[in-house]
């Protein structure tokens, strides 16, 4: 009996998506296993490391797959389409947040999270220098403008090619390259200012600039 079971592991995303459109549960399970962690990571990063929201958005994203799976065009690359849907969800979240007129801006939320290391990131319990640097960098990434951050995360977190990123965000490749460049420059400037001010803080915290520089690969 098991000899006739389909080996979904060898199926492409597009083929699995077609099966999902026909109501194949195992195909859906396979797609979930392939993309759930990635998409959760993406949402986590794009939604300012809000774990609950990342969970909710991941669930909603796959729910769209269930409900609108039949409308998927198999000629399109699945991952591109999927990231585009996820990006639109994030964009809508920013818009609704700004419409609500929340007095608490994103950056303030991040600052509040960063002020409490345990709350911001449970994996770093000791406020060592590298953690401080990483938090500074994380904050800098999250404070990037939305289009720049989206391209930057897709490129250096999900490691997607520039062509695919351009399809996801719906812009020419040149625009994507430009956004990546400006995002990199902005981060480097932020880190530069951080490193310049760091020695003064290091005297208090017992860390030094050299520790950060040694992290180079």
């Amino acid at each position, binding site marked *: 009996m098991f000899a006739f079971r389909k080996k979904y592991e060898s199926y492409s995303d597009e083929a699995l998506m077609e099966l999902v459109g026909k109501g194949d549960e195992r195909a859906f399970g396979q797609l979930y296993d392939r993309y759930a962690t990635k998409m959760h990571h993406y949402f986590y990063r794009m939604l300012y490391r809000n774990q609950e929201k990342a969970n909710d958005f991941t669930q909603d994203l796959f729910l769209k797959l269930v409900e609108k799976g039949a409308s998927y065009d198999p000629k399109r690359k699945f991952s591109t389409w999927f990231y585009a849907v996820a990006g639109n969800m994030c964009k809508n979240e920013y818009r609704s947040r700004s419409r609500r007129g929340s007095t608490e801006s994103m950056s303030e939320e991040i600052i509040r999270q960063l002020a409490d290391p345990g709350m911001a990131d449970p994996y770093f319990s000791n406020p060592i220098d590298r953690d401080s640097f990483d938090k500074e960098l994380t904050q800098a*990434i999250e404070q990037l403008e939305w289009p720049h951050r989206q391209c930057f995360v897709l490129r*250096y977190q999900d490691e997607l090619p520039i062509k695919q990123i351009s399809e996801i965000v719906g812009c020419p490749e040149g625009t994507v390259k430009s956004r*990546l460049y400006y995002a990199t420059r902005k981060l480097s400037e932020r*880190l530069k200012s951080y490193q310049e001010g760091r020695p003064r803080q290091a005297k208090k915290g017992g860390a030094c600039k050299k520790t950060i520089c040694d992290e180079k690969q």
Partner: protein
Amino acid sequence: MKSNEPNYMDERLEELLLKADFADLSKADQAYVYDRMDAQTFEESRQALLASRRVLSESPPPLDPQIRGRLMEQMRQHHSPKPTPIRQLASRPVPLWQAVSAVAAAVALLLLFRPTVEVLVQGPPQMVYEYKTDTVFREVPIQVAMDTPNIRKAPSKVSTPRVINRNPRRIAGRMDSLRSRRPLPAPSTPSDLGFVLSANDSADFQQVIRQYPPRNSGGRPLTVDKELMHFITEIY
């Protein structure tokens, strides 16, 4: 920062940024980089990129494991066939007492209107008489008066006795004399009416024979005609 610094992330520049420090690059690569930015900017960008990749690659808190189960349930519900009215009716819960009483009623009906089975036992054959249609009849000649109102007047179709036909004069005289007489009484027997006695079966025949016994004016009685008697006996 150079004035001719590009405003986009060139693929080769990105590759070099991720590859090595400016000092470790080849002369050609250094020249390529130097056309776009100075060494310090290269180092700052490199550091930012590497650190960002490291930060971004850090695993977030794990995804809620219950999401998968919930989604699979949604998938099952979304693609399950829509309930038809018959299915809805079939899946409707029924109180136990109703189900039990329905079964009891069905059993009672079966017991009350239990179908009976007739068993036919085949016995020894018995001889019975089956009457067949009687096709035997007799022709009885009758004497009919010419002025009988039951006889049609057309002389060509009236069958006249052979004896009378011999002498037309006597016929005419006889006709004259008959006209002057009073009419004959009405016939009392079918034979007098001139129709043929017929019977559908032997019983009818016997009844007719009894009711209207044949006269001895024509033919022979059955008791005398042995052959006819034998014929009738053979038939019946």
